[in-house]
């Protein structure tokens, strides 16, 4: 069992209505965190977080980084105490 923190920005925060929350995970994997998020927040989170066939994290206009600034993918491991930042990925403007 590990504890990870989820930090939300932009559309993610609109859906969750919180800026940050913590999850205890049985498996230290991004895939479990993603399942917890879609289970908790429903179809809108599913549409934002996952791609159309639900097999991978959505890459279209989104960015997910761990505390070390590394993009995380569904199959990636998580460490106890990690923060995952869920963001809309844009640059410049």
């Amino acid at each position, binding site marked *: 069992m590990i504890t990870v923190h989820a*930090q939300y*920005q*932009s*559309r*993610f*925060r*609109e859906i969750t209505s919180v800026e940050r929350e913590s999850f205890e995970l049985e498996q230290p994997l991004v895939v479990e965190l993603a399942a917890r998020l879609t289970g908790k927040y429903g179809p*809108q989170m599913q*549409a*934002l977080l996952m791609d159309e066939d639900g097999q991978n994290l*959505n*890459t*279209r*206009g*989104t*960015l997910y*980084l761990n*505390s*070390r*600034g*590394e*993009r995380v*993918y569904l199959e990636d491991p998580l460490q106890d105490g990690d923060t995952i*930042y869920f*963001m*809309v*990925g*844009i*640059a*410049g*403007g």
Partner: protein
Amino acid sequence: MESRLLHVNLSTGELRIEQLSHAIFERWIGGSGINNWIMWEHFLKHDVNCDPRSPDNIFVFGVGPLAGTGSGSGIKGRITFKSPCYGIFGDSAAGGKFPYMVRFAGFDHIAVTGKAPRPVYLYLCDGQAEIRDASHLWGKNTAETHAALNAELGDYPSHVHTLTISQAGENQVGIAAVVSDASRIHARGGGGCVMGSKNLKAIAVQGSGGVRVANPKGMLEWSRGFRASIDKNEAIYGFKRRGTLGAVEMYQHIGSHFWRNNQGNMFRGDEIRSDNWVKKYHKYSEVCSADCFIACDGRYKIDGTESEKAKKYVGETFRRPEYLTTGSAAGALDIRDWAEVAHWGKITNDYGIDNQDLSCSISFVMELHQHGLLSERDIAELFDRPQSLEWGNMEDIEALIEDIVFRRNLFGELFNDGPYWGALRYSQRTGRNFMKYSIYGKGGASFTEEMRPFPTWMNNMAVASRGADHLKGIGLIEKFQRRDLSKRYFGRLEAADLSTPVLKGACTAVVENQVALLNSYGVCLFHWMLDPAGYAPEEYYGRAFAEVTGIDRSPEELMRDGERICNLEKAFNSRLGLRREHDTICERWMFEPTTEGMYPGKVAADMFDTVLDEYYEWRGWDKASGLQTASRLESLGLGDVAEVLAADGALVRA
């Protein structure tokens, strides 16, 4: 494909319409690609080394083939010229309604040369063009000029849409911008200065025409598909409310802001967050461009309840700040109140001046003051008055803006071409070397984001044809660490790995080619960045290009088209004497490590030369000199360009 180019010679008053051949689209796609070719041909007959403020310079406006077609994406107009502030290739894009109205008025490109004997504006309406007196507009800012032209021209046969300059352009300030419909700014490179040097105050258009499309049914199908893909992309709903301000928190987490002249990379204070903007200032959104399916724009109106400082701006209304408006104000200048950030965006727009060059120039002198490098005597000499140079002090900042807009003292004169030339001139004048405090790439002002952790972006700053710039090769594969795209384009993962220089030069080149395509289609880069329909512009938007023009190319052929466009921009700069040593960046980025955010301790020097070498290799250019090679140009169908470069001694025979 039918297309019309209007030639305007302001010295003689001659107006001439040229029907552009289908072949030009085959070679240059449209938009920026055709603009570049028009400028290239102009400088085969005029001295390319001319003073950019002289009548020999050219000012080109153009739209891409998707503009006005209902594609939902082809919204950008582009201006192209020899840059007066950097002395190299210059261009700049903006959206809004002006671009499609130019087409509805019967034109696709406008090429202005010479200099009018008195202030004039150019009026286009339903296939006709006139040069009109603008004496009554001279001295007005961009908002006043737009309003005056609307009152003068009325609403028939359509609303009036304008490109205007302000007093900054009239005063030939090198970093003066051109503003579309008083709200959308062609900021980079000094196009407003070029217009001002020609006594061209504005271009006003009205039109009731339409746009021919090669395959209307196919275009409509493409457009419907594009719309559907946007509507089901949840990320876009947040983007609509925040626009590019959505990047504020992301950059705060990463440590990618540009604080106090890039001494740091995170904002200070709790106020400047997009959530606070949405809560306090977000009044309504509007369709940002007539032909845009995303509509990320919004307006604010300050009522004075938002903050103590907002009371000063009660009643002020304008567009929501973009990220770089915020990056320059809350970052470079350390302004910590949203009302002041918004006001910064409005006044730089009304004064028609690039807020990236401007903020980097002001933050340069503020940093000198911070380090005690300016004596009272220095300050009196620079400003002709007592002047506090306090970070974040809006009153000080407004005074400094006007110094540059009106070139009213030594500071305004030295820095009218931006922070690189300003710092160099001030160093030379005082005999002290202040260049380590100037933030630039290739002589151009930085855009106000932290670059050091991102080797592809750092390389963009060095090699971009118009000087330090992210919009010529926006390195999303690297910054967003898209392993899927790295694999797709390179068959390997390193392009998405921030820790290695491998594939960063290659990534710069590939993305530059893609962005050249998007800029030539006229597609907004945010459509591409939000990726509603797949990343590859050579595939998805290439289909729209085919439906509109009838030119059906494979993705590989389109990537070569993008490469051809990039090579012409490069060739223009090579004619001006630019070589490898000009593809460089400032001392702070090169040697001073980042201290904050997710990527502390990063300096560009660790990877810079390796990335640049790989970039030249990928481009097929000569690594030692940075020059193009005859073989690569010929393989791109640019043998004629190679001949010009050879005659100028700017080509490597390999």
